[in-house]
């Protein structure tokens, strides 16, 4: 049986909740609620990071935690929120075809990521190694969200939640990446968020909708 300290237990509980929040994002059809769920996920990731910093006494992780909290839980959700209001999507409700199937598929992805990471877990390098499988699952669930959602804003949320998973992976597996890399990644994420905002407006302008299904002019099909 696994022996974990109380903080490590909290870490694994919180990471499990992060996974659950990914499912919540996947199933949430109301945009504003999805943004809120995303903000919660960011806050949870920041909390896990802060706890990891306490466990491993890695002071630079505190900085990462604050960075994540600021970026993923506050700034980006705020930007998305503002955009949603600006584009008058407050009451937008998306229809997901076969929601139950999507969720089941998501559960399958969790199993898949466990299977992928299993050989690494067997190595038993760190007490929190088990979290790696969950982080991969969060990444893949974000990917799934981008595949099944047809709405630009939800796709962006899926993208950002992938980033959350990646960040958590770095924290769980290696106590965070070197500071320079982490800053670089955070910068990229921020730029990406700004660009997404620009794109919302461009897409809206060009097709008068934010439904990705209507972005269908470029295909291999031979149409005249």
């Amino acid at each position, binding site marked *: *049986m*696994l*022996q*974990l300290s*109380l903080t490590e*237990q*909290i870490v*694994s*509980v919180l*990471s*499990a*909740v992060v*996974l*659950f929040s990914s*499912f919540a994002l996947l199933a949430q059809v109301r945009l504003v609620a999805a943004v809120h769920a995303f903000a919660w996920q960011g806050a949870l990731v920041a909390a896990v990071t802060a706890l990891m910093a306490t466990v491993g006494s890695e002071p630079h992780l505190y900085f990462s935690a604050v960075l994540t909290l600021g970026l993923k839980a506050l700034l980006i959700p705020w930007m998305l929120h503002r955009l949603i209001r600006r584009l008058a999507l407050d009451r937008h409700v998306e229809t997901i075809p076969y*929601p*139950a199937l999507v*969720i089941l598929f998501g*559960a399958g992805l*969790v*199993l898949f990521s*466990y299977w992928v990471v*299993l050989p690494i*877990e*067997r190595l*038993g390098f760190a007490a929190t*190694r*088990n*979290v790696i*499988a*969950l982080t991969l699952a969060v990444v893949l669930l974000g990917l799934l969200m981008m595949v099944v959602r047809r709405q630009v804003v939800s796709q962006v949320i899926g993208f950002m939640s992938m980033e959350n998973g990646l960040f958590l992976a770095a924290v769980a597996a290696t106590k965070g990446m070197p500071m320079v890399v982490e800053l670089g990644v955070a910068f990229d994420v921020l730029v990406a968020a700004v660009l997404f905002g620009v794109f919302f407006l461009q897409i809206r302008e060009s097709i008068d909708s934010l439904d990705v299904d209507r972005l269908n002019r470029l295909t291999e099909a031979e149409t005249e």
Partner: protein
Amino acid sequence: MDSVLSPAAWLLAGIQALLFTLAAPLLSGWVKKVKSRLQNRRGPPLLQPYQNLWKLFGKEALVAHTASPVFRAAPYIVFSSTWLAASVIPLIATKLPTAAVADVIVLVGFLALGRFFLALAGMDVGTAFGGMGSSRETLIAALAEPAMLMAIFTLTMTAHTTNLSSVVDHTLESSYSLRPSFLFALGAMLLVAVAETGRIPVDNPATHLELTMVHEAMILEYSGRHLALMEWAAQLKLMIYGVLIANVFFPWGIATELNLGSLAIGLAAITSKLAVLGIALAVSETVLAKMRLFRVPEYLNLALLLALLGIFSHVILEVGA
């Protein structure tokens, strides 16, 4: 197991089963009372359910002339199967002789048996409401049961046994108390319990609104002592789920030794745990609105997902790979 032979332990098991049955109406009364208070009403007295049952037992049981013997037998079968289920659940102490049969699969089986006859009875007379209630009940049950079984399997995988009593003991002895799998299983169990006991937002026990009722529709044709047994069985079911949740997920306080002191602590612990659960139920019933029937599958899918995540997080996070 020594306790199997000890007459005192057997006596205690009998008392526990009896206590379970007798306390069930009290829990219902408590929930009703708290709910009324939350809605700024005074509400019926705490002991009102007992008076209702007493009154019904004294009345003549009318049976429709189209009814078959199944209709007459159903209340007794439903009540006794529920009561059997109740009697094996550890209420105030774990190491009792009945613990040997306190298997979770047996428990689910007893509950399923009761529900099967309840649904049969609903359809027996041939009225529209009864059939409708039965079909809805089976729809809910078909979705809730897998979720409940999976939530329970999460626990049994942790304890490596399907014996409820041992599960409780295992949780008490383990130092690894904050388990993500338990969190998810608890969530799933709460959702399933609400659905199975016919509370808001799945069903509303307080109304006979024809288009929405589920449980009430099935027992619409019953009267007198039959109705009393059916109602009592429903109250017992609420108590079963309450005790399951309280003792499996929060077992602290339950008596592991059979002496007077720890038994008293056990009794106090379960009373307070059930009181808290009752308040939580009343609050959620006040806050939530009943949902439309076709959204119930979504709700139960959530329970299923939580149960699934419980198993996953047990396998992924807790098994020391």
